[in-house]
């Protein structure tokens, strides 16, 4: 349904330097699938999500949606045209709602994309959606500052979903929330996905949550997808050394499991994505590095639908 082919985004840094935020990434997302995208901060996962909904232009590659090529750079009319079908839920529930608009204004604005102006019908839809995300219809006259983080995140979800899009990019929708509220939002998304037939790109750094909600999981490191496959397969049988270390670093909420675990923390820190060399991006931190890692890593099919980019797997 959504196919990304060799997509890249470079940000100019001046003096001929370029930051390779997303570098030659291919990913396809099937209808009604949830694809989880994980990686550390700066790995390019948000940039990738924003390119899909047209908030960033792309420098190379194609993104096609239902067989239709999306424009490289969205113009105002492209945003209007695609916003009905492509929506985004933002990470920061504090910054993504206009503080000077009431909840009614915020939610009805997205309905106007569909050209719905009948006041009674709009009010009915807003009421219905506030209930669907677990808020009270009386809340529609309030302003964003009157709500808690979890409640704002629900408003962001209602805004994205009420025009019934087909595809939603969820950029860290739960990382700003408390544990008990995270589970509420995850369950809400799962229910809405089932009832509306949504396709989701779920961006997060919480590996356990991504494994839980996703059908497939893609791991990004410094602008590259290093491993991609069925979520449980990637989580429980990781092949790329980075994925292995990432999952080994992920703490479990179980004291006995944590005590018995021998964690070898990953060495060093993420290197710079400015003008990277052609070799494997993870080579400087990889415990199994060899001389051939200076060459571009091959993409290896590990099993049906599970791929990883590493020389060692070749």
């Amino acid at each position, binding site marked *: 349904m959504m196919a990304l082919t060799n997509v890249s985004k470079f940000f100019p840094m001046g003096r001929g330097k370029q930051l390779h935020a997303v570098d030659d990434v291919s990913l396809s997302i099937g209808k009604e699938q949830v694809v989880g995208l994980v990686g*550390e901060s700066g790995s390019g996962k948000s940039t990738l999500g924003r390119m899909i909904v047209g908030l960033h232009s792309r420098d190379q590659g194609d993104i096609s949606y239902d067989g239709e090529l999306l424009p490289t750079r969205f113009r105002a009319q492209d945003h209007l045209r695609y916003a009905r079908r492509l929506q985004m839920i933002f990470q920061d529930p504090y910054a993504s709602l206009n503080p000077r608009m009431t909840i009614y204004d915020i939610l009805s604005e997205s309905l106007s994309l569909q050209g719905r102006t009948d006041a009674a019908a709009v009010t009915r839809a807003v009421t219905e959606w506030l209930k669907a995300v677990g808020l009270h219809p009386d809340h529609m006259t309030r302003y964003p500052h009157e709500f808690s983080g979890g409640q704002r995140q629900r408003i962001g979800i209602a805004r994205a979903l009420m025009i019934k899009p087909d595809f939603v990019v969820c950029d860290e929708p739960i990382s700003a929330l408390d544990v008990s509220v995270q589970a509420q939002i995850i369950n809400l998304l799962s229910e809405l996905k089932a009832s509306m037939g949504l396709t989701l790109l779920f961006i997060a750094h919480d590996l356990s949550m991504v494994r839980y909600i996703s059908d497939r999981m893609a791991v990004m490191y410094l602008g590259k997808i290093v491993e991609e496959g069925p979520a449980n397969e990637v989580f429980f049988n990781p092949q790329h050394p980075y994925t292995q270390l990432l999952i080994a670093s992920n703490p479990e909420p179980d004291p006995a499991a944590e005590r018995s675990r021998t964690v070898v923390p990953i060495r060093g820190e993420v290197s710079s994505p400015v003008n990277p060399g052609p070799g494997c991006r993870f080579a400087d931190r990889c415990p199994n590095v060899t001389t051939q890692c200076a060459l571009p890593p091959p993409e290896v099919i590990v099993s049906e639908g599970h791929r990883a980019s590493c020389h060692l797997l070749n």
Partner: protein
Amino acid sequence: MTDSILSVRDLAVEFDTFGGVVKAVRNVSFDLTAGQTLAIVGESGCGKSVTVQSLMGLIPMPPGRITHGRALFKDQDLLSIGARGIRGHHMGMIFQDPMTSLNPTMRIGDQIAETLVVHKQYSRKHAQDEAVSLLARTHIPEPGRRANQYPFEFSGGMLQRAMIAQALACEPAILIADEPTTALDVTIQAQILELMQTLQQDNGMSIILITHDLAVVARMADQVAVMYAGEIVETGSVEDIFYQPAHPYNQGLQQAMTSNQQPDRVLSPIPGSPPDLFSPPKGCGYCKRCPHAMSVCAEHPPYLTAVDASSHQSRCWLHHELAPVHNNPVRRP
């Protein structure tokens, strides 16, 4: 407890705001055992940070007010005015956001050295050398060069290491870590937690760890205190808290987490949201969200009750002898 190094009793903190008085911390008591890690867990706004800030004298007064309580460390009350010297010397603190907690206009080495000059009366030169060796102990590569750099030249993980180096400068008996890894990526989080554990083994210091991440608690803690709406609702060993949760809130938390041991378990969230601390409920703070609430819960605040023979305690009416036994999830026969 005989080996308790810090003993907090009946701590209560209030804040004056435009909306009224917020009772942020209500009658919190706990003991920190020497050489161990106590984790204080809870959701945002439950009072966990305010609790430790009041121990460190970091509550802005006004609008804050410590209305009640004692915190005994070496027979001295940390909440009294004259305790400033003790805190600087014997207690260190690291904060959630390393980017905003260090002075951006001072070199890293100077910031660490300043602590030593003030508290240990080191000479500048001696303090500078000591700062470099502290950076080396926290595994910062090229510590000599790094000490001359400014915070903006450090990554988030390195800044957190620098802040740990600063907190350790005076070899504190107690390290308070307020969400030390929340702003960091999971691989860097693993490095920082590992570093804290190694340093604890080397120095024998005690750690108070504030976090909302139960996986970090499982990794680090010996003892756990679960806070909700300004109160400690359950306290016990880390095994008690995870394997024998007694308070309905803690039981709810355990069900709301993903488990990779049971990959297919469905998450059950806790409905609703925490109470308004402008007017804390008359009875139990959790009763509006509690699936087992009884009429007594709305009327009378429950008290901490021993759950078993060990230190495991929970603040819930379901532990009372008159509570119904039928389907009572917290009373064990």
